[in-house]
């Protein structure tokens, strides 16, 4: 990774009046330091001074600050929103990074060095030279059982997770199965319970022992955390109530015909419905009959 000092020396200001990658050098440095700490303590939420950006908090500012603090010459950036490269939000974030740093962008998962994502992990397997930056609305997995942040932090420090397990037990009693659709809580490296951001259950197994680095940013809540490569990530489950990913029995993608990707349901005007791949880059590749390395 190129140092901040080198970047300022060699690239100066990409566009007049703005620092390289929008953030000033000191901000970049602070966010990188927080990220180093996050990588060193997998699953631990590191506080950081969330900056003002030209987008509103809650629209991906945490992920964007990570991305902007990491990008440098030679990086290729991909931004997706629920798997989609073309959504308005993804486009805006990508253009901001492009405009303020001049780096190359792509929609191809395999080409990207940094992928910023909202609520999905790509269908294509990520490599050790790739970083997945996840946007996160609520970084605190204990919030549903403990409203106080300081108490929740103490619970993390002491590994005091029986109330979290109790909440899952109560879900089972109430519904007869494990609760929660997106953002299912996981135990990272056998130590910290972590909110995986609202990714579907489908994506949870991909976090476990992955080759790539996962960086997670919550701009509004001012926290970053990380899952380093080859780190165990285990969903909270009981011996007799196992975690299961979503299934789409009998459904295939209406565009590419794929039967083993995460599908979005589309309701049509005539009341019928069809399913398409949530990951549009993967869907395109399948339509082109390209080789795609899967998880």
């Amino acid at each position, binding site marked *: 990774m190129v140092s901040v000092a080198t970047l300022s020396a060699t690239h100066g200001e990409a566009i007049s009046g703005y620092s390289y990658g929008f953030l000033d050098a000191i901000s970049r440095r602070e966010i990188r330091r927080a990220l180093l700490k996050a990588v060193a303590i997998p699953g631990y939420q590191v506080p950081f001074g969330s900056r003002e950006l030209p987008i509103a908090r809650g629209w991906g500012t945490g992920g964007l600050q990570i991305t902007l603090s990491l990008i440098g010459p030679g990086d290729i950036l991909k931004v997706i929103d629920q798997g989609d490269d073309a959504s308005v939000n993804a486009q805006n974030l990508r253009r901001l990074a492009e405009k303020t740093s001049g780096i190359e962008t792509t929609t191809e998962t395999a080409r990207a060095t940094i992928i910023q994502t909202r609520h999905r992990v790509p269908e294509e397997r990520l490599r050790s030279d790739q970083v997945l930056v996840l946007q996160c609305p609520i970084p605190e997995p204990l919030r549903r059982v403990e409203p106080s942040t300081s108490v929740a932090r*103490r619970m993390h420090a*002491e*590994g*005091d997770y*029986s*109330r979290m*397990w*109790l909440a899952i*037990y*109560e879900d*089972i*009693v109430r519904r007869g199965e494990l609760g929660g659709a997106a953002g299912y809580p996981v135990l990272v490296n056998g130590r910290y319970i972590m909110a995986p951001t609202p990714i579907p259950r489908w994506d949870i197994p991909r976090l476990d022992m992955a080759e790539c680095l996962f960086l997670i940013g919550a701009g509004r809540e001012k926290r970053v955390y990380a899952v380093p490569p080859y780190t165990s990530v285990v969903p909270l489950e*009981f*011996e*007799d*109530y196992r975690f299961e990913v979503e299934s789409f029995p009998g459904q295939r993608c209406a565009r590419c015909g794929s039967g083993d990707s995460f599908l979005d349901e589309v309701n049509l005007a005539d009341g019928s419905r069809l399913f398409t791949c949530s990951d549009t880059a993967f869907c395109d590749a399948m339509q082109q009959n390209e080789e795609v390395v899967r998880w």
Partner: protein
Amino acid sequence: MVDEPILSVRGLTKIWGRGCDACLDQTGPAHNRNTCPACGAIVACADVALDLYPGEVLGIVGESGSGKSSVLQCLYMDLAPNSGEAFLSTFHSGRKSIWEATMRERRELRAILMGMVYQNPRDGLNLMVTAGGNIGERLLAADWRHVGQIRARAADYLHRTEVPIERMDHLPAYFSGGMQQRVQIAKALANSPSLVLLDELTTGLDISVQAGVLDLVRDIQHREGLSVIVVSHDLSVIRLLADRTMVMKMGRVVESGLTDQVLEDPQHAYTQLLVSSAA
């Protein structure tokens, strides 16, 4: 008894306020006060020592403000004592005082090694979690990860404490006081703790329910050989449950011995008063 004590407490002192050198000398039953005249600190209990043997029930009796609940709250670590040591044989083989436990060890002590039944079920139960979940919380803290087994154990203890099994998945917030208390007892006992602490467990229940709860505790205690400390101002509770009894007044232990002995042949003037007023 030839066994080693399961719990051994020495020099337990709890003072509210800054305290001074005169506190311990100027308070106690001899002075008939627990407020230090020199500095105004309140001596909740001072230099309390006790041994509890496996399978034994120790009663602590005394009037309000005698310090009996403070002893119990210190043992369950709701309060931090000013000085003293307490060794539980199942915690670091009885070589580390429970009051030197780390935060993590404290949680293990409270959730696994000890069980507490408070006078008010609100203090011991989470009323917005199902009865089964309340019991399950302690099992989960002990790393139980099988819902079927947790529910089987919860059902077993709800059955023993005579809570209808069909109420297992209901919230205790909607239970009667007596039933809440029985759920709290089931919760405290369900993971077979080394030490059970009962704080005025029948105060606040009506007489017929009191009898039921006491029968229940005595029955489970006998069957499982639990080691119990029971605190009460009610001599009939002590008479029914306790093998040995300690009498406290103004933060000090004034008399102790076999329950029958203490209640039938009280030696200390205060105990005599207590026994005669109860009769």
